[in-house]
């Protein structure tokens, strides 16, 4: 099977529970594994998803379990686009939030956006205070990677 031209779309909504971060990670990883991607790409995408979804729960909903996190993923023409949505507190200054090592929590390192930026080709953030945050991650998927080789 050649998965090069694979087009796919998934959407998932879940409660803002810490346990659901793994769920989102595994779901996106299984979706991406359908493509001829490399294990390295797969690892990087998992980290980026983990960061965006963790942020929605930790910051967006301030660790309260009654919020809803939305994750969408789209694959088209070898481009993966992941959107992570929350309807939480929002971000006042997006530029500052995305700066390396910036964190509003003294126990955190402020590396979430650093990893998203270094592992994805583009990171776009839309946010409104009191309304919520949308993080859009894009990555070109390299073809003929080891995932497919192992699968064959």
């Amino acid at each position, binding site marked *: 099977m050649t998965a090069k031209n694979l087009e796919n779309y998934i959407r998932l909504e879940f409660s803002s529970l810490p346990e659901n971060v*793994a769920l989102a*990670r595994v779901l996106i990883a299984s979706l991406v594994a359908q493509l001829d991607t490399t294990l390295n790409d797969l690892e990087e995408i*998992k980290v980026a998803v*983990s960061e965006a979804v963790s942020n929605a729960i*930790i910051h967006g909903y301030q660790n309260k379990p009654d919020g809803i996190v939305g994750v969408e993923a789209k694959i088209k023409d070898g481009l993966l686009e992941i959107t992570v949505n929350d309807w939480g507190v929002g971000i006042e200054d997006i530029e500052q939030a995305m700066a390396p090592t910036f964190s509003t929590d003294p126990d*955190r*390192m402020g590396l*979430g956006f*650093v*990893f998203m930026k270094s592992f994805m080709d583009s990171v776009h953030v839309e946010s409104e205070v009191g309304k919520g945050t949308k993080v859009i991650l894009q990555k070109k998927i390299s073809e003929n990677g080891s995932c497919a080789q192992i699968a064959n």
Partner: protein
Amino acid sequence: MVTVKIKNDALIVSISGDLDLVIAREFRDTVDKVLKDKPIKNLILDLSEVNFIDSSGLGAILGRYKLLQQRGGRMSIWGAKPSVFRILDLSGIMKIIPVLKTTEDILRNQKEAK
């Protein structure tokens, strides 16, 4: 899952699974409880069964390092798989906490401690 044992005055903490925010919290709570009760100064973090780590895991590791530093202690990490090692490296945490790859590294690190 987080398991702890004490050997030669050192606290050995072994983590298995994905070191994301769920396990990071378990790691923090488990270690802080032991450190509160016992005057342990040396923590060895075994990551050999960890398949995944993100910033929540890194934050929890750095936080425990700071606690140990406050009491004049030290910490080292060993067993990190390549994918985990890469994240440790990128985060800059390796400049602060020794990450040991081989048994030779571990012996050298113990010698330096004396």
